């Protein structure tokens, strides 16, 4: 996919403003993240990149107590059309099962590898064991982790290496077959080798999933991102304009 | 024919009555047999002078019949009378006779199963072994506050008294102090047992306790020359005497009745004597 083809928008932000307890973080972000692309968001730290991701799955609303305030519209292509995800009729759970997220540092839950990956499926109400096993295996394969863990699925997930843990988290995010995957500096705590594996697997997911990735490393961005945007002063600009 | 059947009848009735007479004394001899087949709880509270007898009786009864549970609480005579009157316990003990007002208000039935006295007690090492009534009044009203004035060492007198619910206090206050003042700076203890323990530990303390509770750990003080022994209480020489009562609201229920019967049985009265009181039978 080339940049000049102008693919269909998957995520569309229009004049999104966000302030956290009165302190402005996003000052009118307007942007489009196209379908089946990896869009990288770069910029100095403390510019609200993570906040930007959290406006896309409304995760900021989980902060307790919630002091954030959002204005503007965020629309995502779900259910066959662009929908305003902040409309009351959309359930948070429903949204987050379609817009998954992977965090900066690997955060497996303190359970076995299998249970970690199966966790979202279990929450979604899957009760058939064989279905569960199939999906877990598929997700682990997608995350390039199956071969490494297939013999120890019931070991504690925290025994894995950092890179493996992060891939586990990616598998966990992918198991519900999300349409959008939000990645918050997914490789920042990993070594180069682990980093490359993750980059490779992300590139593989492009066909099924639209990705928005916050990153520090321009190298990495150059390797896998289709589009690059720069976050500056609470605004998001295309890289060439910056 | 008629004669024969009459004869059989006579023999039969004789045999039955024989059986009756043989078996009756047996059941009389064992008052615990009355509890056979009974189960449930007897709640007892009130007078603290009663507690040793209550505990011994409960032990005997509960050993013979574990199905019966007897719970014993203190609180003092006033509490016992009120609690039984309000229906909170089955038996309310009092170390004084319930007043007419109390009897008519609650419909109490009284059972007096022992005679007791209230004696002034001091520490065994205390030299003061006898007091006159007027000395006693002055001590308890706080006017005499040093042992020296009554022939003891030059030490302050530590007064111990009971709270207003106590029957022991009531009897002592009426019969020994002639309803005179009790100094309000006196230490207040909660029971006869507590009084004895407190005096036995305080070389300069003085208090009053049920005669039945007196042992080596405290020394009884003679009042106007009469030593507070059970003999002198019975003979009427020692004036501060009283009965120990168990009270029920109306007629006692079967369990409470069995318990009271036990107290009045030879075994029960032996317990009463053994704990230092004078049995009524």
């Amino acid at each position, binding site marked *: 996919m080339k940049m000049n083809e102008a693919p269909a928008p998957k995520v569309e932000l229009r004049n999104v403003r966000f302030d956290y307890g009165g302190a402005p973080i996003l000052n009118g972000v307007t942007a489009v993240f196209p379908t089946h692309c990896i869009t990288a968001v770069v910029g100095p730290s403390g510019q609200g990149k993570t906040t930007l991701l959290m406006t896309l799955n409304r995760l900021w609303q989980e902060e307790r107590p919630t002091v954030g305030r959002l204005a503007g519209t965020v629309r995502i292509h779900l259910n066959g059309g662009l929908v305003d995800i902040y409309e009351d009729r959309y*359930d948070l*759970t429903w949204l987050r099962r379609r817009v998954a997220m992977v965090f900066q540092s690997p955060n497996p839950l303190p359970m076995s590898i299998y249970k970690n990956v199966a966790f979202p499926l279990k929450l979604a109400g899957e009760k058939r064991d064989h279905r569960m096993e199939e999906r877990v295996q598929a997700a682990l394969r997608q995350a390039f982790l199956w071969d490494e863990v297939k013999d120890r699925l019931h070991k504690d997930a925290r025994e894995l290496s950092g890179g493996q843990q992060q891939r586990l988290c990616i598998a966990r995010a992918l198991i519900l077959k999300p349409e959008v995957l939000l990645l918050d500096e997914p490789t920042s705590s990993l070594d180069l080798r682990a980093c490359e594996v993750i980059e490779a697997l992300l590139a593989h997911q492009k066909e099924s999933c639209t990705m928005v990735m916050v990153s520090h490393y321009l190298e990495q961005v150059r390797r896998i991102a289709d589009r690059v945007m720069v976050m500056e002063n609470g605004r998001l600009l295309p890289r060439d304009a910056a | 024919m008629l004669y024969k059947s009459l004869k059989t009848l006579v023999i039969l009735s004789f045999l039955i009555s024989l059986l009756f007479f043989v078996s009756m004394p047996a059941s009389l001899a064992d008052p615990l047999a009355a509890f056979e087949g009974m189960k449930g709880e007897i709640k007892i509270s009130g007078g603290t002078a009663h507690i040793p007898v209550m505990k011994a009786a409960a032990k005997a009864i509960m050993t013979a019949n574990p199905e019966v549970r007897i719970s014993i609480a203190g*609180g*003092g005579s006033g*509490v016992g009378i*009120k*609690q039984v*009157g*309000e229906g*909170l316990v089955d038996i309310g003990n009092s170390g004084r006779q319930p007043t007419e007002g109390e009897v008519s208000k609650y419909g109490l039935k009284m059972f007096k199963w022992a005679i007791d006295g209230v004696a002034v007690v001091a520490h065994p090492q205390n030299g003061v072994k006898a007091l006159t009534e007027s000395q006693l009044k002055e001590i308890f009203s706080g006017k005499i506050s040093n042992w020296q004035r009554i022939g003891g060492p030059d*030490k*302050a007198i*530590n007064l*111990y008294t009971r*709270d*207003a*619910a106590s029957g022991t206090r009531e009897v002592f206050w009426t019969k020994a102090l002639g309803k005179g003042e009790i*100094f*309000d*700076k*006196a*230490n*207040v*203890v*909660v029971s006869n047992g507590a009084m004895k323990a*407190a005096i036995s*530990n*305080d070389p*300069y*303390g003085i208090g009053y306790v049920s005669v039945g509770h007196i042992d080596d750990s405290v020394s009884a003080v003679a009042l106007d020359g009469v030593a507070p022994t059970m003999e002198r209480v019975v003979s009427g020489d020692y004036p501060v005497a009283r009965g120990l009562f168990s009270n029920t609201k109306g007629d006692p229920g079967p369990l409470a009745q069995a318990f009271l019967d036990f107290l009045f049985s030879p075994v029960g009265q032996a317990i009463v004597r053994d704990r230092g009181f004078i049995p009524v039978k």
Partner: protein
Amino acid sequence: MTRSEFLTKYGFMAAAIISAAVPLAIFIFMALLGYPILTSGRLFGTLLGAWDPIHQSYGILPMIIGTFILAILAVAAAFPVCLGCAALVSDAAPGPVGRFLHGVVRMMTGIPTVVYGFVGIFLLVPLIREAFGGGSGFSLLTAALMLALLVSPTMILLFCDSFGRVTHTYRQAAAALGATTAQQFLFVVLPQARNGILAGVLLGLGRALGDTLIALMLAGNAVAFPDHVFDSARTLTAHIALIIAADFDSPEFRTLFLCGLTLYVLTTLLVLGVRLTMRLPGRRP
């Protein structure tokens, strides 16, 4: 929101409402049962008179005074010791020693009150009697000393907490100027932690006011106004424990609720005080 989400949320809320209703219910119940006294015109007499049921006088003032004196004595005795101990635990002692002592103090919070009372009777009472000849040993002082021991861990832990919250940079600044541990503590930590110290004192007072067993077992329970610390005295808490009334309509029973209400109001005021001090500005010197 799904049905189960809705149900669980309101289930939790119901539990919270029940829990919050408890202190309210206690207050309302006490007030209702004490109401006849509050309105009978005898309130003044009941609050200020002497306790002498035989003469129909049911005053609780001696107990109120006893409660105050005892609590203040206990906290006053405990305060310098607790402050010193907290200073050692959080500041002056080397790390492992401090941590060990902190653990010991926390374990001390677990010693049952009745054990303090028990040892008080058989150890402290004779000691006080011998050492200060004359009294029976059951006195305000005896109870206050044991009570001081009881409230110490609470106070120390709170003090340590507030010392620990003093910004590290201030200490470093002081240390950079060549201040010794003692100087840092006295001139930097102590002034900054004063709200926490106040909160600790108030909390200690609350504990001391509310304790029943030590006062009941050691203070002697005399109903008179105490004149000095060797006097026997009765607290509100011990009074409630001693007057086991069973008859609903007797004045003794009614006055118990006055005692209960008084304790309720006192401890509530202290709680409000603690909350207030925690919120006070003044972390800055």
